[in-house]
């Protein structure tokens, strides 16, 4: 299959998945990449170049907020993201839309025309 189609399909749900992962607790970039990889059975292998612009967009739309951690000792500072109240509301709407979307899409895909 042309990887373009797969990429296109995944792209549409990335914002929702990132919001979902962040709704549990605040996380930093690498954590999000690792969790997405693990929880999707390696279907979502997100690169930093894709994730960071998504997080910038979500922050611009005030769906997430960020903070740089105070490093302790030799630790490096990390940029943590957390979902805002507005972000949770959007996530709820997106979850509902996704359920409806997947049902409808599955319905169409499994439909067999009766002769």
């Amino acid at each position: 299959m042309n990887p373009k189609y797969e990429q296109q399909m995944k792209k549409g749900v990335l914002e929702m998945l990132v919001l979902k992962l962040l709704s549990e607790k605040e996380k930093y970039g690498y954590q999000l990449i690792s969790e997405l990889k693990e929880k999707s059975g390696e279907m979502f292998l997100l690169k930093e170049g894709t994730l960071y612009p998504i997080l910038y967009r979500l922050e611009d739309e005030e769906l997430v907020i960020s903070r740089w951690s105070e490093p302790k000792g030799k630790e490096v500072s990390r940029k943590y993201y957390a979902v805002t109240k507005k972000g949770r509301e959007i996530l709820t709407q997106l979850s509902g839309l996704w359920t409806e979307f997947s049902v409808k899409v599955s319905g169409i895909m499994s439909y067999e025309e009766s002769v």
Partner: protein
Amino acid sequence: MTQEVYVKSIVKKLKCSAAKRQEIKKWLESDITAAIEGGEPLESVIARMGTPENAAKEFNDNFPPEELKAAKRKKTVTIAVIVIIALAAVIALGWWILPKGSMELTHFDKEEVEGRITLIIDLLDADDYEEIRKYSIKAMQSEAVETALRETKALFGSDWGKRESFGSMYIAEVTQMGKRMVTAQVSVSYENTSVTYTITLDKDLQLGGLYMK
């Protein structure tokens, strides 16, 4: 490739604001360090993220169009500013090199200039090169200059005869490459020939150039 070099190579190719570039640099350093601390070797992180070119392309492809437009505009403005500065420098250099003349004397006394020009022509008529040297800049004091002057004079004839008239003197002040000079032109008639002298004096009224026609 070290982590620092890898991150720098990516950041350099990002098409976004300087502030965002700096933040992404810090972010990448932090996440790569987190990956290494989590047991992923640097080679594996680099393999996952791709070459600096590909990693930067991934960012650029995902930046909003406004961000890319602003970065492009900034680059264009920067190039335009560099071109304008370079052009201005070339024009300034050209202006500095080109001689700029004025008939109005602001740094020289007209009578003093006329006196010195007349003296030099008198000395030339008398073939008194020893004395001319005293009123010349260092470069004009050599034997070669004296030889050249003798040869040039000979081109006008071996016997010029007595001086008959001294024409009007035209004087102009000239500035070139930061140096101030004064140039005078005067036609002198002799019994057997006539010569137009163009004589240049430096700021101390020392002979710096002589042209005979």
